């Protein structure tokens, strides 16, 4: 168990170093075009570019630059954002907090919903209820986030006039503005978690010990709650943790659509404006969150599963 945790964390650090190298090569070197041209724009002349390179130390050897860059990163010196004219950290932190709020409400509703639906359909595999839930899940995961955002806003904003169409929170925090973005994310994501829960539940329901419990005459309800659920919910735990990775992609679309001032919209803005320092920092944070949750998912899975824990 301990060696596994150490191994996983070691791999996590290794992944982040490789990712930082990839980001550095893509965004800071001449591999994909002149960084000076990218920052100063197409119409800058060679003299200006040379001056910029000299000023920002781009004339040093690549390896030295990478070490320096990584050192700055590790010590929290993330650089200046060109787009927002300020330190990257100051721009990024409030945005991260906003996305955390959105993510929290999304998960708070999506997880119970998908677990209940998954368990209900996995309890009786092939039943009418199972098929309906499956097809409904396929239907909702087939509608991309931007399409469901369009459909929901034409229904709830323009049609019924119940909810506001943008979520910029310009007049302070308002819960009403959070409903549509969260709804779009939930509708897109719940189908996958429900399907995984169903598969896990269906597998447990065919196992020997559930059959034994049914045959010895236990009430159906207690078979499900006491025997089946405890094992069936181990696998969805991993799926839910990995879902954070998907959520990071989803928030980009949703925040852009609803003009929500969050982290996803910031990544997009940084890339569209060639704000390299900001893009690097955002990408590193996104990968850190993703890799950390993956590691936690792995460790948590082995911890929850006694067959692995005690071996």
């Amino acid at each position, binding site marked *: 168990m301990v060696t596994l945790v150490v191994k996983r964390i070691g791999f996590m650090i290794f992944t982040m170093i490789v990712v930082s190298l990839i980001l550095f090569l893509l965004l800071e070197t001449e591999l994909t075009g002149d960084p000076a041209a990218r920052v100063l724009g197409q119409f800058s002349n060679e003299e200006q570019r040379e001056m910029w390179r000299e000023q920002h130390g781009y004339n040093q050897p690549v390896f030295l630059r990478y070490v320096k860059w990584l050192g700055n990163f590790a010590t929290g010196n993330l650089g200046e954002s060109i787009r927002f004219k300020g330190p990257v950290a100051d721009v990024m932190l409030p945005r991260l907090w906003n996305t955390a709020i959105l993510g929290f409400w999304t998960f708070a509703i999506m997880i119970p919903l998908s677990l209940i639906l998954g368990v209900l359909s996995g309890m009786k595999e092939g039943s009418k209820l199972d098929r309906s839930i499956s097809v409904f899940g396929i239907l909702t995961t087939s509608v991309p986030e931007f*399409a469901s955002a*369009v459909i929901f806003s034409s229904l709830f904003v*323009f049609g019924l006039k119940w909810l506001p169409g943008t979520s910029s929170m310009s007049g302070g925090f308002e819960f009403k503005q959070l409903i549509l973005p969260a709804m779009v994310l939930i509708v897109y994501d719940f189908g996958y978690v429900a399907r995984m829960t169903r598969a896990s539940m269906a597998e447990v329901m065919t196992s020997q010990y559930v059959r034994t419990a049914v045959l010895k005459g236990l009430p159906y309800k207690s078979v499900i709650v006491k025997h089946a659920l405890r094992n069936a919910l181990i696998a969805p735990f991993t799926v839910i943790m990995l879902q954070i990775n998907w959520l990071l992609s989803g928030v980009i679309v949703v925040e852009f659509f609803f003009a929500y001032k969050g982290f996803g919209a910031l990544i997009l803005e940084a890339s569209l404006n060639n704000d390299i320092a900001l893009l690097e920092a955002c990408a590193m944070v996104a990968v850190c969150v993703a890799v950390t949750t993956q590691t936690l998912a792995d460790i948590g899975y082995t911890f929850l599963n006694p067959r692995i824990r005690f071996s």
Partner: protein
Amino acid sequence: MNTSTAITKMPTAGYGAALWRGLKSIGLLRESWVGMVGAFLVLFWVLVAIFAPLLAPFDPNSSIQPFAKPMMAAAKGGTFWLGTDHIGRDILSRIIWGSRTVLIYAPLATLCAYTVGILMGLAAGYRGGWVDDVLSRIADIILSFPVLVLYIIIIATIGASGLNIIIAITFASSPGIMRIVRGLVLDLRNRDYVAAAQTRGESDWKVMLVEILPNARGPLIVDACLRLGYVIITIGVLGFLGLGLPPPDPDWGGMVNETRQMAMAFPHMTLFPCIAISSLILGFNLLADGLREISLRD
């Protein structure tokens, strides 16, 4: 001709037999109504894409009459069945031509991703050892990126174009395919027919491609259907974020991006492309579900 003679006359080896088996498995789809609905949706859009020049009532890129509502008659004859957009382009024609864009780029990108993914997976699963270690680590690292962040970084650095979208999709999704193929190969490489081929002295690549790969096709076909759906979503999302194919050629995600500011007054401009893309993705997902159901049965 009665059926029993038809069956006995069927070739038992070679391409004829493979073709016959393929046709039979399409026939099996009848047993799953979900799969049938999916196949119908996909076939519908494929036909629309093929016959786009015949079906589209107007030129998709020419400005005719801005802000027309659905069903409105055009001044120069004809009807804007789904209305026009802010520059006056007929939305139905753009959706019809847009199906071509999506049905060219999505399968092409999926094919590229599969070629790379299958080669990596075969090498990792069959060779094992350090080849497997290196390839698996690379796959782990790429898969640890949030997908859309990866796409945004790639497109931001190499620019938005059709070819670059294919490159980005290949880069981001081949590791997932590699993992599936690797798992299947680990299971298949100890079979007797593989050992027989090795004993015959066939080269490694021939064993992988001729003996192992065809026997792994079942799960791969289901996965390919699902992945096509994801790739269509990706192309749509990139278009919607303004990172997709350059204008003016119609692209469903791009159509939503261009007109979403006007959705308040003219919901038809955004709604119809959304329905189009969702129905095509739904088609592939239902088809995958139907195929899986059938493959699990026997």
